[in-house]
């Protein structure tokens, strides 16, 4: 009998996926976004593997264009602790902020199931604040990366047929103090693309938050829009988990 029922599921007039059109399409959109981010991270992996790795001990590590940098030596700063070596602490904080905003998002969805407008409002607001806090951290991280270290990196180049020594501070799309140029390019590209997702997530969350306040979903009788935007927001968190591992840890 089980096979008959399974066949009937697909014979029309049913919902074989048991999910609404909007939710299903959000899932498939996120799947396509997964491919985009995978492509970016795989590109990082491939370019990284094509450069020599630093094979000395971490304490003696210095920036050089000769090998790929160790991420923990690049990302070791924390606001208001200038010059203190705090490897990956700030990134850890950013990870914590994003996971927490994912938690408040689930709580908003859960409150939506109970049609509790006040609680959905409260948790959506916390989610938005978490997203803004993350973006603030990223702005700081980028600024630090662009401005660079105190000492910089001394490079030699040919200007008008003469070898000239010059010090490079920080990184942009043309120069990079920390290591080979693609390292900086990929940093801006991957964290930038993720940051754009966070930014659009905050904007979408805000629109939903506004609709909750004016009672759109209360009149509609369900808070499924909160679930859909929740899927997107968790995906942003999911991508960060991968960026964290492949950009900062490995």
């Amino acid at each position, binding site marked *: 009998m089980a096979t008959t029922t399974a066949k009937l599921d697909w014979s029309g007039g049913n919902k*074989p*996926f*048991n*999910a609404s059109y909007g939710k*299903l399409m959000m*899932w498939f959109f996120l*799947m396509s976004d*997964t*491919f985009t981010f*995978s*492509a970016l991270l*795989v*590109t990082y*992996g*491939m*370019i*990284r*593997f*094509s450069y020599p*790795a630093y094979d000395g001990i*971490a304490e003696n590590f210095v920036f050089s264009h000769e090998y790929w940098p160790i991420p*923990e030596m690049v990302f070791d700063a924390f606001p208001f602790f200038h010059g203190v070596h705090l*490897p*990956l602490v700030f990134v*850890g904080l950013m*990870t*914590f902020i994003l*996971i*927490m905003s*994912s*938690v408040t*998002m*689930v*709580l908003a969805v*859960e409150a939506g*199931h*109970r049609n509790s407008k006040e609680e959905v409002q409260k948790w959506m607001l916390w989610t938005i604040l978490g997203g803004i806090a993350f973006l603030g951290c990223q702005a700081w991280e980028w600024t630090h990366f662009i401005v660079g270290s105190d000492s910089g990196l001394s490079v030699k180049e040919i200007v008008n047929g003469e070898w000239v020594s010059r010090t490079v501070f920080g990184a942009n799309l043309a120069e990079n103090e920390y290591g080979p140029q693609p390292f900086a390019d990929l940093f801006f590209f991957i964290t930038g693309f993720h940051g754009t997702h966070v930014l659009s997530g905050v904007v979408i969350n805000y629109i939903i938050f506004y609709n909750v306040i004016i009672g759109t979903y209360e009149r509609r009788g369900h808070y499924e829009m909160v679930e859909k935007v*929740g*899927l997107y927001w*968790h*995906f942003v*968190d*999911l991508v960060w*988990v*991968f960026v*964290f*591992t492949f950009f900062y*840890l*490995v």
Partner: protein
Amino acid sequence: MADTTNLSPEEASKAHIRKVWKTAGILAFVTAIEFAIAFTPGIPRTLKVAIFVGLTIVKAAYIVGEFMHLKYEVKILIWSILIPMIFVVWLIIALLVEGGSMYA
């Protein structure tokens, strides 16, 4: 939410919230382990990378399964999302092998 069918709505909601916090705790704990391993000297690089990839997949499974609720959707939806990920696995393996051969 699997065993909440015979609970009252309030109890089911409380159980769900407890589960959310438990999941968050697991995610924080796994991240802490990753940090600890990143700063433990003497672990071979390949092993470190393997551990990081494994733990990242654990975290991803919790986020997608619990937070995004995929674990509780119908089977056909779960497979519709998971099976295309084969292409990602293929992409990773193919390009890392190619990258290792560049300038070699």
